[in-house]
Structure formats: structure tokens, C-alpha cells
């Protein structure tokens, strides 16, 4: 049987934060993720990497919430990069124009490096 266990791990580094999710990203879990991101923004973070390598499923509400996180960051002139996307999720991000406002990278290292590139 498949299980939708969900977990969020945070890693705060000098100048950026990495949020790693695990499991199905639906509405309530998306809200948990948004809350995590907002808390980090209140602490002054404006550069984020969201690592979705362990998230193979996402629904439309999860996508909406990711867009809202991007909007919040845009207000703060922040940057968000995604990494570890499945081909389906990457395609979905491009389709709903989410990829126009956030970077998509194959792995965490390249996503972090791009946060600081001009």
C-alpha cells in the first residue's frame, strides 16, 4: 500500500534557507509548508530552496499555495528555487507558469548556487 506520510525539514544557512518536503503535498500540508516559509521570512530570510526530491505527488491546492509563497517572496524581492522535481511536477510547474517566477534546478547544490548568482 502507498502511504502519504508528509514531513518538512528546514535547514537555515548563512543567507538562505532550504526546506525539504517528503510525501504528498496537498492543501493542509501546503499550508504547513507556507507557514514554515512565512516564519523563515519573518526571521529575515528572502532566499529559499525548496527540495521536492521526496515529494512525488502534488495536487492543485498544493500548487496554489506554492504560488502564494512565491508572491510573498516577490513582495520582499526574494528568490525561490526548486530542485529534485519529478518530470511530471516539473512539467506541471511550467504549465501553470509557476516556473516563470521561480527557478527549477536538478539538485540542491545547483539550486543554492543559483541563489547567489547575479
Amino acid at each position: 500500500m502507498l502511504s502519504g506520510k508528509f514531513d518538512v525539514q528546514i535547514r537555515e544557512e548563512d543567507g538562505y534557507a532550504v526546506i525539504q518536503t517528503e510525501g504528498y503535498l496537498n492543501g493542509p500540508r501546503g499550508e504547513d509548508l507556507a507557514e514554515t516559509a512565512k516564519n523563515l521570512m519573518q526571521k529575515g530570510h528572502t532566499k529559499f530552496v525548496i527540495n521536492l526530491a521526496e515529494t512525488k505527488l502534488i495536487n492543485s491546492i498544493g500548487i496554489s499555495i506554492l504560488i502564494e509563497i512565491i508572491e510573498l517572496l516577490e513582495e520582499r524581492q526574494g528568490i525561490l528555487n526548486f530542485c529534485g522535481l519529478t518530470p511530471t511536477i516539473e512539467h506541471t510547474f511550467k504549465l501553470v507558469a509557476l516556473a516563470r517566477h521561480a527557478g527549477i534546478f536538478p539538485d540542491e547544490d545547483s539550486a543554492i548556487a543559483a541563489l547567489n548568482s547575479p
Partner: protein
Amino acid sequence: MQAPSADETIQRLIFGLSELDELGETIISGHGNFSVSSRTYLRMILGTLQVSGGAILLFHPNENTLTIKSSVNVADESLVIRVPPDQISGFLDHPYIDLSNPPEVLQPFFEHIHSQLQSLDARFWFPLRIRDEFLGVISLGAFFDGHEIEDWNRELLNVFANHTSIAIAYSQLMVRSRAERFRLFMLSDTATQICKSLDTEAVQEEVVAHVVSLLDANAAGLMRINPNTERLEMKSLFSLESHANTELRNLSIPLKSDENLHPALTMLAEVATQEDKTLIYNDEQNAALFGRKNLIAVPMRGREEILGVLIVADKVGRRGITLDFTVGDSTLLEAFANQAGVAIENAFLYQEALEARRLQAEMEEAEKIQRTLIPDTLAQIPGYEAFGLYQPRGGVGGDYYDCIPESDGMWGLAIADVSGKGMQAALLMATLRAGLRSEATRKTDLPAMAFTLNSLLNASGDFGKYATFFFAQLNAETNQLTSINAGHNDPMVIRSGGSCEWLKKGGVMLGIFPDDMIANMPPFEQETTQLASGDIIIFYTDGVTETTNINDELYGEARLQDTAVRLRNESAETICGAIYDEVLEFQGEAEQFDDLTLMILKKK
């Protein structure tokens, strides 16, 4: 605070309206988002009218709640105000509400949310709407200079409210459009994904995982019809609970009506058996089935028939609020289930074809092995003629015959039939042959040899695999034949005068019982037969005597005996060929599935 001059007011109005124009263009161009623009609207309203604070609240029709989208000078931004559905018309009928004197119809509501209004510091509410759709409210505090609201303030606020309503509606349209694009993409992408796999179980797991995402749900199950048991059986589950309900995982529903069955389970069975039957449960009490909040089920069709049922449960929105499954969800799920059905059927057919190819390859290998085990020609025994024939029919069986030269003028004659077909039968036969050749040359007594061969086959074969076996040792100098029959068809001795005897003595077939059980059974016995000139022995497998014709009649021992007696004066080869031809003639057009093996020994 001093009231602003008319000039200042006009300047603020011009500035506010021109900003409104720009904002409108940004929203229509699709580059803005309402999170940002709602804050701009609010600042514009507060600045133009010189109001101390306020908020834009959005209405969520699925939840009947108002939540703050943007605010200035509001104590609690996480405020959630519940709006009873029967109050909505009150908001639609009043474009402006003075909270110190609200319309009579809304008074109970505002009394109920009095404390929340205080945390909003609200004095005026301007409902936001497009036609009959209630979208939210602009909530405003007091004017800086404390003056009462004037007509031109209300008119201006109505302009702002209309503009904000359009922006909200447009934003909601964008969200819906995005969700629809997402669903359509998921529908097409999932079809591609699930069709890539040709492993039935993997496809089923992909289906349940994707369908929860497609319908914004939290659980899904795929049930397949088992035509043998006539039941609907759970094959794959997706659930947010890490420990699945065992009852659900093993759910099996009879397709035929059963009075003792839960009504919802009966309806699931109907989805699997009736045309165009769909099940939607939004009533939490009924959907308590499986411990779910709500559920929807549609048939999953293959190319020609319904394969099973796809069930999706727990559609959940923001803040964990349960959302109803809609007719639109049902349409989407049906489209998805049809794709899933074809993908599962494809995978199943592919696996069947793969299995058939594997069996064919195994049969070919087994046939090669068997060909190497059966002698092309039999060793010639001095003073005797020996001739054998093996004809495979309907797959590779485990027939075996042999003539083994031993020392001191002794010859071993064997015939056996191993149970089953294919590689397993061929390997068991190879084991028997190797054991026999080893034992026969050691000249052990035949019951002891049978015991050893039984032990060997029992240890090397699966449960239920066995061999019928007949072995004889011929002393070609004394013409004495000592034999043992372990459950094989009795070879017949046709005397030169035409009489017939059967070589029956021996014991149970080999390989089926372990040593300790064999030891408690009647011991293997051997018998001795004296052969004379013109005597023949017919060794055969059940493929000869159990050959049937189109009338389902058996060829049988009597026909074999009659033919052997009639041809007893012919050579061993002639007798063998004639029996074979007669069996084939008897068989006619009837299909046969067992190999045909014959061995003839004739004393010259």
C-alpha cells in the same frame, strides 16, 4: 486632526483613480497577483479617504468563511469569520453597511461576530460581489478626522469595491483556470505515465497515487473483479495514514447481492456490474464507510468489459475543510478510470504474452533435454530384437524408455512416465535416468533400487511430482527376466502361442512418498518371468492406452493386446510401427495431450 481642504481631497482623488487605472491594467494583463494588488487597493482606499485602518476579506463559498487577504492596523490577521449561507443575500442587497446601524436582516449576524468586528476595528463594510456572487468585503475603520461618511465617500468606495470585485473575480478565474490546466495535464500525463509500465501491480499503484492528486483527495483504492470468485477485490490503496486498515486492504465484496452486506458495499458492487453506475457519497454519516469523510466511485473499463472500480475519498481543501465531490469530479474520474482500465489491461495482456513466451522457451529447452535422454536407437541384445518409439503430443511430457547394457550378459530395460510437463518434468526425468543408470550398473536388487530411486526423486522434486516406473533386468543367456513395477502401466508378455501375461508386481509410484512413509508401506516386490523364442513384451505409457477418439472412447489395453497378439509373429520394429499407426488411426481428429511411448522386446 484638521479636515483636509477641498483641493487636497481632489488631489488624492485624482491620484487614487489614476492608480486604480494602472492597477486594473496590471490585473488584466495577468502579471499581477491578488495578494499584492489587494494590499495596493487597500492602501489606495485608506489613503484616498483618510481612514485609520481596514482590511479586504475574501469569502470562501465551500467553507462559508471570510478570511483576511490584506489589512492595515488590524490586530488579528488570522481572523476567520463564519457567514451562515442564509445571510449572504443580506450582503448582496446592501452595497454599504454602517456597522453602528446595520440593516435589520443582518443585525443578528453582526451581534454574533461583535468581538471579531472589534479586532478588525471595523466601522463600515462594503460587500464585494459580481452579479449574485458574494466575493468578500472591504472593512474600514473610522475616518482620521472623525467625520461621518459622506455621499461622495460612499460613491467612491463603491467604485473601489467594484474594481476590487473585478480583481478578485479575475484572480479566482486565474486560480480555477490554473487548476483546470493542472487537472487536464495530469489526466493526459498520467495516461502516458501509467501506459509506460507493463507491470500490472506497478500500474495499479500509479493509478491510485495519481488519482488522489487529480481530485485533490487524500485516499484512493483500486478494486478488481475476480471472475473466478465473482468478487470485487482490493488491489491497491493510497492513504495518508501510515498504517492501513487491514479490513480495507483485504476488502472483498461479492458481486452477487447479499442481504447482509453494508448498503455502500452493495452499491460498490453495483458500480462494477451495472452500466453507467457512479457512486458519490458526500454525506459524512454514510461515507463513514472505511472511516472516510466522503467518497466517489466509478467503473474502470477495459476494452470490452468492466475490470473493476476506482474509488477516491476525502476531498480536502484548505484548512483541512472537506469539500464535496461534484459531477465534474465524476466526469473527470470516469475519463481517468477508462485510461487506467486500458493501461491495466495492456499490462495484464503483456504479462500473459510474456509468460506464454517464457513457457514456450522453457518447452523448447525441455524438449532438447528430453531428446538427449531418450535413445535414438536401442542397444541390441544378443538373441533379442528391441525397438522403441517416442512421440511427443501437446507439449513436452516426461516419458522415458531405455535399454541399458550391464555386465555379465545382463540388460536393463526401463520405461517411465514423469508427472507434469515442461522443464520440471524434463529435469525430474533426467534425475530418474541418472539414478537408474547408476543403480542398475551396481546390480543391487530391484526393490532396493526402487527404494533408492524413490528417495532420490522425493528429495529432488516438488510436492506432488512423481514418476511411474517399470524396470526389468534380462539375463540374455538364461532368458530370465526379473522386473519391478512402481505404479506404471503393466507391460504385457505375449507368448508365442498368443496367451498374455501382465507384469504387475512392484509397489507404489516413485517420488511421491518420503522414505519414512515408504518404509511403513508394503515393501517393493519383484517377479521373474522366463522368456522363450517368439515371446514379446510390450512396454508402453498411458499415452498409448488412454488415447481417445472423437467419441471420447479410450484405445485401451484390450485393443493393444489384440493388436500385439495378431502381430506377434512380426519383427519388434514392425509391431511397434503397426501399434503406433493403429493408435493414430483410432485417434482420428481428436486432440491428444499426452506423449506416446512404446518399446517392444522380442525373443528371437
